[in-house]
């Protein structure tokens, strides 16, 4: 190996197509969808469904072709995560709210892929690989009383041995695409519930809840500061019965020894999802930065890369700092995704990227509004929307503080009980 920042040709080609979609389909709709919250980005969904569907089909068919127990073939490091992060960055450059409505299994898919059996993958994911109607997957973890502290979830799963069904009860909030998955398509939601409250994390298990399950209700969809095109649902589970085999992984509860597969499974999906959130943040950040530079250039103000500090104007200094912050966060993100592709454990690097990207994009977009003055603050332009959209990146998939805590534990070699 050698240190290299060469983006594979295939990704560069894909990016060209994604950019056409982002600028041609997403940008023109961005303002309207922001002003009309809960309106669906139908053009984007229509265009993306066949792409996402065919990708899922390829993955499932590949799995089906393998004989039982055979490990997936690896031909050196892949580029799956690298591809995904570049695509997510570009789509988010187009519009984060729309990107989040991407019709695919998404986080539910990640959980099913991570711990599901072959049978479960086929049963739950095939719907994302066929048909003309888009399908969504979602993950429901957060509860009114369990935000950053996921181990505090109260939703219960009790086994009814007479019918061999799990009975779920509880309330889930902030579920991205929950309504699209359960009410607007034949999708699935991976619901985290505890089979034993006294066991803490060890009792937490992921369950697949399918659309149409009786006892599952969308209580409300949130009205939000930004990413208004994104569907953020509250789900109430009231004696919702699902088959025993909808449990992902083992039902076994091991005591508090940290060796639990269920919670670890959730944490492992974060290793993959956090670099993507960071990439999404970078897309919004780049949109704001490019826009600011364009407006400045139109006014005859260029950003120099060869001037000493004392010759730079305040605006030039700000823009240079915006650019440096985005580059720094982007490179951390690139590393986190690349390590994943190389099969290297990346939770430290993923949290570094996420913490940095969330903070950087928040600052960069706020600065963009400031620099552009009255027009930056105006809803005529997208800059104020980008600032509102950007903030979510420092919150979801672990707030900046939670990711900083993870970094701190790792560099100090402390467990979660040693550094609380």
């Amino acid at each position, binding site marked *: *190996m*050698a*240190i*290299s*920042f*060469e*983006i*594979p040709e295939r990704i560069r080609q894909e990016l060209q197509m994604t950019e056409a979609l982002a600028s041609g389909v997403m940008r023109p709709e961005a303002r309207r969808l922001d002003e009309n919250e809960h309106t669906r980005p139908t053009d984007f969904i229509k265009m993306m469904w066949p792409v996402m569907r065919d990708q899922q089909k390829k993955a499932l068919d590949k799995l089906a072709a393998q004989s039982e127990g055979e490990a997936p073939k690896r031909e050196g*490091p892949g*580029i799956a995560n*690298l591809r995904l992060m570049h695509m997510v960055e570009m789509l988010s450059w187009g519009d984060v709210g729309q990107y989040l409505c991407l019709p695919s299994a998404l986080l539910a898919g990640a959980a099913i892929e991570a711990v599901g059996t072959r049978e479960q993958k086929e049963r739950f994911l095939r719907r994302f690989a066929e048909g003309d109607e888009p399908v969504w997957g979602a993950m429901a973890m957060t509860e009114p009383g369990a935000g950053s502290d996921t181990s505090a979830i109260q939703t219960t799963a009790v086994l009814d041995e007479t019918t061999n069904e799990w009975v779920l009860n509880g309330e889930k909030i902030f579920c991205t695409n929950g309504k699209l998955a359960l009410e607007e398509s034949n999708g699935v939601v991976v619901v985290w519930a505890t089979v034993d409250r006294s066991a803490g994390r060890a009792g937490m298990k992921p369950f697949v809840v399918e659309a149409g399950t009786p006892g599952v209700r969308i209580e409300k969809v949130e009205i939000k500061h930004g990413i208004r095109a994104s569907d953020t649902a509250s789900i109430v589970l009231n004696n919702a019965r699902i088959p025993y085999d909808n449990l992902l992984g083992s039902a076994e509860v091991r005591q508090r020894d940290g060796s639990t597969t269920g919670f670890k499974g959730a944490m492992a999906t974060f290793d993959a999802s956090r670099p993507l959130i960071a990439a999404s943040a970078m897309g919004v950040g780049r949109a704001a930065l490019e826009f600011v530079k364009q407006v400045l250039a139109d006014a005859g103000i260029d950003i120099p*890369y*060869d*001037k*000493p*500090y*004392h*010759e730079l104007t305040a605006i030039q200094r700000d823009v*240079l*700092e915006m*650019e*440096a912050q985005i*580059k*720094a*966060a982007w*490179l*951390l993100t*690139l*590393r986190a995704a*690349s*390590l994943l592709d190389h099969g290297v454990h990346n939770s430290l*690097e993923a949290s*570094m990227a996420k*913490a*940095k990207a969330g903070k950087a994009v928040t600052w960069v977009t706020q600065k963009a509004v400031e620099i552009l003055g009255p027009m930056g603050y105006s809803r005529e332009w997208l800059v104020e929307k980008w600032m509102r959209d950007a903030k979510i990146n420092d919150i979801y998939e672990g707030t900046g*503080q939670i990711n*900083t*805590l993870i*970094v*701190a*534990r790792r*560099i*100090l070699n*402390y467990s979660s009980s*040693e*550094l*609380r």
Partner: protein
Amino acid sequence: MISFTPTDEQQMLMDAVRRYSTNDVRAIAHEADESGDIPASVLQTGWEMGILPGNIPETMGGFGETHSAVTGALAYEELAYGDLSVAMRLMTPALVAIPLVLDGTDAQREELLPLFLEETPPLMTAAFIEPTFLFDAHHPQTTAVPDNGQFVLNGKKAYVPLAEDAEWILTYAWNVEQVDAFFVQRSAEGVTVGPREKLMGVRALPTYPVTLSNVRVGADCRLGGAQGANFPRLLAHSQIALAAMAVGVMRGALEYAINYAKERVQFGVPIATKQAIAFMLAECAIEVDATRLMVWEAAWKLDQGQDATKEAYLAKQYADKAVLMVADSAVQTLGGHGYIREHPVERWLRNARGFVTFDGMAMV
């Protein structure tokens, strides 16, 4: 293909330099800072690692396959992790060797590059910075005026490492419409080396002001001959070298602060178990890695033969701020003890502040 793994050869070099920094350099760094001098034996051991000869291509008589900014950056981080004064003093010959590799004429390379492969380094340095807050690397006030096939140099330079003992000083000056570098003999008429400068940090690195008053040099003393130098690229190499050294300083400071915070008990617990301390250190860790990646990307671009003006500029700006933040956090973590010179963190804070000023004082 994206990769963050150095080659085996690079890793071996990094390991060797890290051993030197950890064992030889750290042992003398405090005393060197206090006394303003580095033991000759430590410098000799450092020179014998062959960092510079290894980065001079075989085709030019050196020991390396090619010249690589990435390889240089990796080594410089490890060196500065030991001590910044030692790193800059040890690599002072690179201020001349690397510009020769990048922009020298064949004749200049043939005459001078072999000197860098000797058992002791040649007495050569470079004069870049000028003693004013209005200094602009791209428009130095020092001038080189063509005159009858020669150049006449006038101006004031500062922060010239090892100038007192140097035989040659590669001097940067404004030449009609671009920045060029000229080989000036220390003994030439009109060259005055002032008394050693007294700086806030890098106190073990002797630096001097140099005044040039109607100094005449031949046309063959212009780096790159008739073509001159590709100054923006030279500056990029310098920015990357300095930013890489900043990463080394940051890494050392963070590591020290982490170890201290885990051992220091207050309120009955190690202070590292307090989020106020732990978060500060985590943020530092993120900045160390982010800065390193910016350095690597810029260096990689240069090695690809691409224009890295922007990447190097941003990396240097970023590093200037990050190194100060991390060094300051290290002092803060140690509290009152951090302010005492027996701990190295206050030295690292003094050294860290210098990076914004150090333009042209390292070359990779």
